[in-house]
């Protein structure tokens, strides 16, 4: 499971030590540590409100942690936030899809912002190739989710942070996502995701947020 909290960061991969997160008045978790080696996958589990999304937002750098450090290859990510942004993909609850843009335009924009161009292969990977010219307002919730996930493949980044990636996906899309993650890991990529349903992946470490929950509201 998770290693005991220690200040030392591993020399390679993504890790956190002594992390705590506050949402409003509530300390969601404290003393949390995790390690993710190259090629590794980490599943965040726990009941609703246990801080899975909060941890992913801390990992992405959207929310500063109340305490603790995040490290990449042994160096704190605080030292170079721009480099951290450049190395991660974060897919949150919202799909970041504009109704008036077409599927291909949406993906080309998000990939282009990261200097990526692999729009057609990414659409192919998530079964959206036939919908490339559709305006996004015609997409179903599951198709919008696929489009959000296609951003992962359209521009390369070593760290994937996925918040409930399976929401709205059918079994084909879940298989597509599992294949994409497997290919990503085979190339040395890292992935952390929150989920209630298991993803068909090998060698996934599990981090149960309930172990780090704090009852005392500070």
């Amino acid at each position, binding site marked *: 499971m998770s290693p005991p909290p220690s200040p030392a960061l591993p020399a390679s991969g993504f890790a956190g030590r002594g992390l705590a997160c506050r949402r409003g008045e509530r300390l969601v978790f404290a003393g949390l540590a995790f390690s993710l080696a190259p090629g590794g996958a980490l599943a965040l589990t726990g009941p609703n409100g246990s801080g899975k999304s909060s941890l992913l937002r801390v990992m992405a750098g959207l929310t500063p942690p109340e305490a603790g450090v995040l490290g990449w290859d042994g160096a704190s990510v605080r030292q170079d936030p721009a480099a951290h942004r450049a190395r991660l993909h974060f897919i*949150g609850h919202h799909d970041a899809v504009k109704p008036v843009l077409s599927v291909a335009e949406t993906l080309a924009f998000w990939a282009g912002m990261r*200097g990526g161009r692999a729009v057609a292969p990414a659409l192919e990977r998530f079964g959206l190739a036939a919908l490339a010219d559709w305006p996004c307002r015609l997409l179903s919730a599951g198709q919008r989710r696929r489009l959000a996930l296609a951003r992962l493949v359209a521009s390369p980044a070593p760290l994937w942070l996925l918040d409930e990636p399976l929401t709205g996906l059918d079994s084909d899309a879940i298989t597509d996502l599992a294949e994409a993650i497997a290919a990503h890991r085979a190339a040395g990529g890292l992935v952390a995701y929150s989920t209630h349903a298991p993803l068909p992946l090998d060698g996934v470490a599990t981090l149960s947020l309930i172990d780090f929950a704090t009852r005392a509201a500070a």
Partner: protein
Amino acid sequence: MSAFRLLVLRDLRLALRQGGDAAMVVAFFVLTVILFPFGVGPEADLLARIAPGILWVTALLAALLSLERLFLADWEDGSLEALALMPLSLEAQVLAKCLAHWLVAGLPLIVVAPLLALLLHLDAAGYPVLVLSLLLGTPTLSLIGAVGAALSLGARRGGVLLSLLVLPLYIPVLIFGVAAVEAAIGGFGVRPHLLLLGALLAGALVLAPVAAAAALRQALE
């Protein structure tokens, strides 16, 4: 620079496809200016005297009208979250969004302003300076407005809050914009007023993206 251009182009494309904002801003500008001759009477001398003020105040309110949506739509659909995690700094992204906003909501005002000035019997000497002062002043309106739009994200009735935050900061632009046109009509030097408008723009270019980006990060936490 290409991510910057990509963001400007995306915002322009969204504005043109949704079609609402640019048309609404210009329609508001035209209709409001047309109301004044009805309100104060068609007397040419009076209209000519208050024309610079009418045009500037109305342009300012028209620019304000579209500002609320500058970050709101991106915030609601999760795009802002994703944008904040892009390699391009949030400050540069704010600048890109302001540029797109100005092209959609500022530039059309400058194009129709001389036509409306004609309606208000503005003195012929005022036209070039009116356009020049709007060219220097309206980008400042977009930039200052971006700070207000970022700060009012997540607030209920954000539009009202935005007006309260932003209108006091618009006053210097209004004063020097109107003063420049009146100086031109009165035969005085317009250079100091235009230089001050330029200084406001230069200051806003540097400070507004930093302030707006800080407010956006706060909103995303």
